[in-house]
């Protein structure tokens, strides 16, 4: 309380003491922190003539809180002003009132004019009072949902999400299983994959499985001379015409002429046709859905 009274009295006294010294103080006298720079200007052309500072050493630490930066002279409206800059170099543990130092100026006639101390407050960076860093606090209080999550709603949401994911997975699984049990080349692929990998392309069961797949796709028994009926029943196989005919030729040689045919990658052909078959099934499903719409 005493300090505040002192400040008020000092402020009342300053204009009287430096009546002839024209001074521009910083904009405010509060709210300063470590690192802030305060600017004070003194008009060097007073009514009593030019003035100059007597002891104005720059780079000087004034007290615990202030450090004087190099000053300079600037011209404002054709008048010479001395710019005094002070930087706050320390942080108090609680708000402190400090003052820019008093400076004695001398006129040409030798008259001394005193720049009175200018008081202002410096605040600590933390609000704890002991200078320690406090836990960061938000600008406004957090929403209740975070402090106290709505567990029933959260559970319901999680259950819904898991249900959707579960149903999607179930649908994918059913479709996958259904495809692998119904699509002709998927069936052939399963049969072929059960065979020892080293002899898949040579094992007669693999060839027969692929033949059955072609028969199933065409809806009838297909032989080398009736491939047109296969393409007619399943036009999407037409793009693999060369490979299919090669397979049938080799199959005839193998099964009927009883001569070892040229190597045919039966499992690869089956996989290729299975992929094409799946694409075709998707297109058919989309087309069906379009018709329903």
């Amino acid at each position, binding site marked *: 309380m005493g300090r505040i009274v002192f400040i008020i009295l000092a402020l009342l006294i300053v204009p009287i003491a430096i009546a002839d010294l024209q001074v521009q103080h910083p904009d405010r006298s509060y709210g300063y922190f470590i690192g802030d720079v305060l600017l004070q200007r003194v008009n060097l052309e007073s009514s009593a003539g030019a003035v100059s500072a007597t002891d104005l050493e720059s780079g000087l630490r004034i007290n615990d809180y202030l450090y004087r930066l190099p000053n300079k002279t600037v011209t404002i409206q054709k008048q010479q002003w001395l710019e005094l800059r002070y930087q706050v170099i320390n942080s108090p543990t609680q708000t402190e009132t400090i003052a820019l130092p008093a400076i004695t100026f001398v006129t040409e006639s030798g008259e001394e004019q005193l720049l009175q101390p200018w008081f202002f407050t410096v605040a600590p960076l933390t609000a704890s009072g002991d200078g320690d860093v406090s836990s960061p606090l938000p600008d406004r209080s957090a929403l209740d949902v975070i402090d106290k999550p709505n567990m029933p709603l959260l559970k319901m949401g999680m259950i819904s999400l898991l249900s959707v994911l579960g149903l999607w997975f179930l649908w994918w699984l059913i479709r996958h299983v259904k495809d692998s049990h119904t699509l002709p080349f998927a069936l052939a692929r399963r049969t072929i994959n059960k065979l020892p990998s080293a002899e898949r392309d040579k094992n007669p069961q693999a*060839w027969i499985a692929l*033949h059955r797949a072609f028969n199933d796709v065409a809806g009838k*028994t297909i*032989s080398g*001379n009736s491939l047109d009926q296969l393409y007619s029943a399943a036009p999407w196989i037409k793009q693999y015409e060369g490979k299919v005919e090669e397979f049938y030729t080799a*199959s005839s040689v193998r*099964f*009927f*002429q*009883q001569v070892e045919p040229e190597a045919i990658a039966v499992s690869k052909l089956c996989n290729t046709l299975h992929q094409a078959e799946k694409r075709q099934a998707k297109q058919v499903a989309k087309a069906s859905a379009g018709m329903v719409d």
Partner: protein
Amino acid sequence: MTTENYLADWREHALVTETAINSVVIGQSSLIRLINVALFARGHVLLEGDVGVGKTTVLRAFARAAGGEFERTEGTIDLMPNDLVYHTYVDSDGQPRIDPGPLLRHGEQLTTFFFNEINRARPQVQSLLLRAMAERSVSAFNKEFQFPHMTVFADRNKVEKEETFELASAARDRFMFELNMATPVDEDIRRSLIIDTAYHNADTLIEQVTYGLCPGDQLNDVSTAIQKTVTTSPAIEKYILELWRASETPGQFGVSVEGVEMDRLILAGASPRGMSALVRAARVVAWMNDREYVIPEDVHAVLPAALGHRIFFQPIYELRRSEISPVLIHSIMNVVASP
């Protein structure tokens, strides 16, 4: 001459014969191919068709190409079995005479026995043919008469049913092929048949076929060579066995015919003799296509002709045979997989 060359020469004979007969009987190339196959498979052929489509002409043309001795009998309701074996008459000296009938007249030289309108003959007569066709021999006058080179061609018209006798199943089974000769549908062929005078005289037409072009008395040897040379792989054998089982129990193979209860359709499937005939014919088809192994297409080529008349239906369906049989055979071919 190696067997390979021997068969290659005969293949040429077979194809030339076929070409010659195709030029005489136009618009029936598939039928002519099948009769040719039967000839080299040493099977008998029953030809069915409408009146006047050329059944007799095509069979006579084959008989001429086969050369050798030829006999022809017209089936009539009063024809008796003895009429085929002998006939009696009083000669100019007033003495009773017994002469050999058409079956015995040429003995082993008989190459073609043509039975016209077979369904007009009584079952007794048809029965006589059973042994003649199956064993190529007949017993008469306490003696065995052999006809090793005989091929029986028979025809019947399917229009008239009065005063006719349906062939017994055993008799039908003796025929390797039962073929249906349809009226050509191609406009140009139809125009030629009625406008072109060349086709108006059957005798003149048949004479265009070189006599003995495909000597019938050598066909047994050729056929034996074909059957020995053309192989059937295990896969094709399995396929044929599956076909056989499908002819017995088509329902179990997923064969279906619209409007037919498959479990109640079959009275008897194809006989072993029928399947044997099928394999022999398939081998001949392979040989004609210059192959020494049978493929499913060879079997397919002869399956309807070889099995169509050998699968016997329950009485309720037998009346619809002409409608059901082709569909059934086609379904069996579609369902049974090869390999």
